[in-house]
């Protein structure tokens, strides 16, 4: 190896193996300039104000301001689109002072009532290492009653799925709860056994598997498991209106209008025969129909 190249590799070794790593000097301290800076600034400003608006309660004297700001920014839509919807009422305004559980029972076709052991009362293994979301869901069924019907529907379907397609008759719910004693009471006994606390019970509204929406195992899933299809008309669908159904409904309305207008036209025909522009309202309606023409056509 010649002397200069030896020097070269020594210098290279010093630079690569011993000198501090290079620093990104880039374009100075700023990430953006000009239009880019303006656009980023506008976005940051928008996000910040929308976030503050979204996370502050709209009540009291700030209610109108908050509402108008939300309308101006369309912050609700932005938060939903970015999956940034948030609420931070953790243990607020107070932590729960009761332990709540929902006992779930099914009444079978044979008339037997069976506890499905969905609540965690007295059933959890300790130490509690692995997070049990079902325990949280069970409590949420009581906190937010709107979940009870879909949950009961699922219980009906699941029972049918695991029992040869035969659904139970009914799902019954019982609210159970214990009250955590005030600390002053707990201090008297130096703590308490949570399973020695008085267990309160209250029967809640039950759900019939035949009439509750979606409580019937649909044919599509029945086919997966080789079950016979449901009798015709026994699946209780939820009320949904897609663009297709709206278009069909609009088409029906238009058809009815046309029929009515046609009748009117026939009635006045001796006077206005051949006078095309005599039906502005109808013409508008037809245009409206043309607007969703694709939909109408699709529906045929």
């Amino acid at each position, binding site marked *: 190896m010649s002397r200069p190249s030896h020097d070269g590799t020594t210098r290279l*070794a010093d630079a690569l193996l011993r000198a501090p790593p*290079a620093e990104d000097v880039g374009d100075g301290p700023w990430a953006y300039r000009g239009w880019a800076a303006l656009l980023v600034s506008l976005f940051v400003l928008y996000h910040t104000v929308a976030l503050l608006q979204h996370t502050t309660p709209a*009540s009291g004297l700030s209610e*109108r301001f908050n509402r108008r700001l939300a309308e101006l920014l369309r912050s609700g*839509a932005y938060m939903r689109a970015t999956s940034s919807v948030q609420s931070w009422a953790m243990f607020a305004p107070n932590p729960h002072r009761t332990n709540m559980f929902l006992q779930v029972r099914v009444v079978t076709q044979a008339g037997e009532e069976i506890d499905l052991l969905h609540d965690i009362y007295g059933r959890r293994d300790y130490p509690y290492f692995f*997070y049990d979301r079902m325990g949280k869901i069970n409590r949420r069924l009581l906190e937010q009653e709107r979940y009870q019907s879909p949950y009961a529907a*699922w219980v009906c379907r699941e029972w049918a799925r695991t029992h040869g397609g035969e659904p139970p008759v009914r799902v019954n719910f019982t609210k159970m709860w214990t009250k955590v004693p005030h600390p002053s009471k707990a201090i008297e006994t130096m703590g308490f056994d949570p399973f020695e606390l008085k267990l309160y019970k209250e029967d809640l509204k039950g759900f019939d598997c035949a009439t509750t929406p979606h409580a019937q195992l*649909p044919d599509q899933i029945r086919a997966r498991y080789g079950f016979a299809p449901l009798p015709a008309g026994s699946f209780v669908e939820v009320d949904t209106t897609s663009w297709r159904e709206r278009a069909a409904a609009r088409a029906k309305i238009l058809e009815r209008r046309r029929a009515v207008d046609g009748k009117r036209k026939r009635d006045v025909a001796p006077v206005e025969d051949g006078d095309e522009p005599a039906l502005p309202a109808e013409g508008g309606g037809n245009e409206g129909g043309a607007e969703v023409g694709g939909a109408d056509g699709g529906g045929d």
Partner: protein
Amino acid sequence: MLAALLAPAAKGPAIDLSAHMSLATGALWLGLGCALAFFLVRPELWRRLWLERVDPRPAGLLRIVYGVVVLWTLLDLIPLLRFLFTDEGLWLPAMARKNYGGELRRLWDPEHGFESWWSVVQALWAKFSLFHLRADPAFVWAVFGLTCASVTAMILGIKTRLSTLLSWFLVNTFYSYSPVFYSGGDTVLRVFLFLGVLTRWGEAYALDTWWRRRRELLAGSVVVPALRQIPAWPLRLMMLQLAIIYCATGALKSGLTWFDGTALFYALSLDHFYRHPFQIQVATFLHMIGFLPLSTWVTKAWETLFPLALVGLALRRCERELSEGTWPKVQAWRRWSSYALIAAIVGALAYVGGLTAWYYYSPGEGPVQLSRAQAQALVVAGVLAFPALLVGSYLWLRARRPRAHAWVLRWLCGKRLWLGVGVIMHLVIDVAMNVGTFVQVMLAVYIAWLSGAEVEAVWRTLMSRPLAEGEGARPRRKPGWKASLLRPLDRLRYRGPRAPYVVHHAADEASIRRVALLRMWDLGARLQFAADPSVPAGALVVTAPGDATRHAGAAAGRALVPILPGFWWLYPWCLAPGLRTLAGRAVLRTFELR
């Protein structure tokens, strides 16, 4: 945030606010306008706040730690995947779509699909989940597998922008299907994943960056290629988001139990959370001795006041730049206008606060008899005086009590107080309560608050050794209980570098370039390099401190595993007899060395 504080928390009988609603609304608009005008008058502060470039290492570390928490949360869902997301579970897709599909229920028809291409855009803009379209188990499991793969790619930093965007979309397919299973941790995870999409967090500790730097170095670079700095604003938004989480949750804790100090006792005694029923005895004892009531108040105060951590950061930055002479000088009129705008904001808030007191204060409720007008005046005076007092005290300390001022800056305004209390609080929560991955995700996002130098200090501390008593700056303490108590702290505080591992390499250019690649993985600066004519070109020999053995081949690769954090995941392999050679070769292969 301030509006939240001004809003009455407790639900009482409806009060007719119409007489002052317009004025209050006007005042709040004025406040918002003044806040915007402030940054128009002082654009240099806006630029400093959002538009500067920062070291990419905290963002890179955040991506990995946060990504692992996301993956953990996803894997945690496996036992419930069928129940929560498939059509054999809680929801048939039509019901889920109707309840949670947002606009999709109108835009999409199960038989005919979307109405038009524009409907797809509209559906994506609204809350969207793939499972609202299809939810048979095979599809759900396929999406789940894809999501895990995408999050893993994000963690590793492979096509990071794309994998982060895909992770955000796919993770939200699970979260948007139905909210029935949400916990606090899930909300934090969702919110920060969107901010992650905005962050260029693949510029450090990422395979993308490694491949780029390796390419540059092997192509002839005469320096170790730099890490590219990244825009600061997404990280700053993350900091703001964390401050909002804490402040909101603190402000919303307005119930009696947070004031009488019993809240934590109840929280720790709930069947749904405690790790073991035995804890109830411990909680009772801690309540009896006053520890839990104190912790309750500290928690509420710390959460509510957490935004002060942001103020502290800004103040420290300002003080540092003032002392360095790099703080921007502005014309007097701009400075005074900005002060006037701040005063106007405080004034608007004081006005609305006073009106709130007038409407919601019930004479006779407080410890001192006050009329409504007096309560209003008191609130106005308080809102006006508090910031003035705070600023005045700070300026006085700065001018007259430099040591106290330094203490305030270091502790009261420092990250170590605000984040330190948070770390302790979350660790205690995790020990005492099972709240899913809430603790992990909250601690993960703290990383956004660190600077590049702090991240480097963490690596160096991890790779260093505790100094012996009397060595260097570490004091020699008299034996006794005090010394025993302080020893762990001293071991953490007084540290020195460990002896280096020496990498022997051939002196040719190609070999130098290849061993230089090792420096990109050497986060604790544990490597030294020595040219050695006895080492063949393209190979390396490693000697560990205190060991004269010259490790070559796979053994050399294996010897490097403990000091290169990027390979720590190979450590268990190195312990398995059949796999250790493979692990060593994997390390060498990364650098194309023998």
